[in-house]
């Protein structure tokens, strides 16, 4: 049974909001990364669902790109978190506040 495509929109919105919520509430850098992953994946849900809806492959292909880029992003991100830990002895993102105003 085909699920109406609007529901995918709702699902992806829910996932996206979850991700946003995570970003707003978590202070741990890794949780932050995970939340971003959620948001990116909510985009993927849309892409895949509508790719199916429209019957073209564009969305699916793009979702692959997004997944790849998310991985790359995490790679870079982990590197940065690593040096963050070295310099600030913590992975709490709210600790690094030497520059402000």
């Amino acid at each position, binding site marked *: 049974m085909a699920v109406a495509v609007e529901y995918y929109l709702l699902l992806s919105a829910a996932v996206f909001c979850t991700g*946003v919520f995570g*970003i*707003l509430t*978590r*202070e741990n850098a890794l949780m932050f990364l995970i939340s971003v992953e959620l948001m990116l994946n909510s985009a993927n849900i849309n892409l895949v669902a509508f790719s199916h809806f429209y019957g073209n492959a564009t969305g699916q292909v793009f979702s692959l790109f997004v997944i790849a880029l998310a991985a790359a992003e995490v790679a870079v991100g982990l590197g940065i978190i690593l040096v963050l830990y070295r310099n600030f002895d913590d992975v709490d*993102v*709210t600790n*690094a*506040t*030497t*520059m*402000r*105003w």
Partner: protein
Amino acid sequence: MAGAFDFTAAVPLLPFAAFLIALLVGHFAPRLLPKGGAIPGILATAGSLLLSAWLALTVSQGTYHTETIYTWVVGQNTFDLHFGVLVDPLSAMMLVIVSLVAFLVHVFSLGYMNDEGETGLPRYYAGLGLFTFSMLAFVVADNLLMAFMFFELVGLCSYLLIGFHFREAGPPSAAKKAFLVTRFGDYFFLIGVVGVLATFGTSRFLAVSEGVESFPHLAEQALLAAQGEGATPEHVAGFLDVVGFEPQTWFAILGLLILGGVIGKSAQFPLHTWLPDAMEGPTPVSALIHAATMVAAGVYLVARMYGFYALLPTVLAIIALVGGFTALFAATMGVVKDELKQVLAYSTISQYGYMMLGLGAGGYIAATFHLMTHAFFKALLFLGAGSVIIAMHHNEDMWDMGGLKEKMPVTYYTFLSGSLALAGIVPFAGFWSKDEVLYEALIYGSGESPILLAGYAMGLLAVFFTGFYTFRMVFLTFHGDARTDTAESPHGVGWNVKFPLVVLGVLAATVGLINMTPVAKLTGEHIEFLKDWLAGPQGSAYANIGYEHYHHLLVDFAGYGANESLGVLVPAAVSLGLALAGAGLAWRLYSVPEPVEHTEKLGGIKTVLYNNYYQDEYQVWLAEGVTLPLARAADTFDQGIIDGVVNGVSSVSLFAGGRIKRIQDGIVTHYAALLTLSLVALLVAFGLLGGWF
């Protein structure tokens, strides 16, 4: 063959050359300058005098002259502004007077300045030269703007010369006051000049040729048109449309504005306060200022443009009243002064009041006559005073003098001649002219213009005071016993002092004879030479600046009608009697070996008189009590409010900047939150706007 008129420009330019010589040689090679610049000055003024006399002679043959010397501004699609000369009887007479007095003052300065070892002589003679130049140029001016320009330069020179002793405190202050007060008058004058130019498109006194108009004549045409004859000249009509006044009203406004300058320069009430202070200048300068240049300039100007004033009865009445009041007012102040030059200063104010009264009362001849006689006797009196001051080692207090009669007879007799003329004792010059002024005021006042009677009354009363203060001065200075050691053995004076005194003494005694109107009326003899001189030729363009034409204007436009039923004897006798009464009182009170001040008898009035009716006080109060606080308030306002707003804007901006940057608090989750919130806000706003929901 070159006639006298070809040299007209040289009359003023000669003293100007002397000025340049004194200035430049005096600065770069002072040793080359003979007598500190006196010699070039004397030569130049002598040259001017000779040329002026030649001009007067030529004019006396009925040929007049006007010429544009230099076009200052060539107007494109508008009128030109130019310098030109106008040599007619009035200006020729004035040229002679000015150059003569200037010449004598230069000579006198040799004794007063050089022999007294003053420093800065080149500066002094440069000033005198420039002064003479400015006045002569003013006199020959053929248009109002040029007249104004040299009128102002006269003011500058008075500033420079009054403040000659700049190292002392008093003279610079007096010089400033002189310039400032006359500048106040000139302010109105300049508005008048500009108004005349704007209204008529010309400020010429005389229309000489076809298409070249004069403003009095245009005004006459406009007023005639207002009465229904002829048409208003086109541009005048256009301008009157713009300002929206009737011609009579607008011309009266212009006339009064120009009068402002006259009142300032001729030291008429209420702008007379500078003149007594101006006594801080060297005495020869005072002579020049009072007799022939600065102060005379105002009255001369009214005479010069009488064709305009004669059209305006209101203005004439104001002139007469101001003049009459000033004559009386100043005379009363002269009564209590202790210093020789102060008395003379107030007498000057008073005498110019007479001239104004004469002009206002339709007595063009009388006023001009008085201008001439006064020039001589007042120059004489000042130079005489200068002589006394030399003798007294620059002490001017009359109470320190006394008994100088024997020690300096030349000075005494010439001074006496001048005093008699000033007091108006027959047959000295002042009698004839002053009597004529009063006579004119009387006959027109009792004729069609009763308001002039008020002027007459004041003028008449002033005669008494004039007689009194004049002889009080004479008696205190020369009569009685010497009251100080200086007066016992005064400093001698040289030929260069005596020569001018003698020349002027003779003139003061005799010059009145040229226009003995009462005698002429009684005898029917044709001896009113000045009247003939100023009458103006009939049938030429110059007729418009002649007395006959003025008289005609006075009758037609100002509605002046003379009451011919009055004789000439009674009025003359009354004024002579009053003068003698004043002199007699002075004789009673002061011609004693040990005179004392009688001012106590005046009671409370004494204080008022000593303080010159508090005229200085209120003017100083206006300057320092009103204007200065106002200026300071403006400054506070400017610094506080206007600049405060400017600085406030910058402070507010920077403060806002300081606040705005606080958003960036360094905590990255806050950034994410703000970012999300903003995005949501944008989405909601545009969602509502775009109707997504």
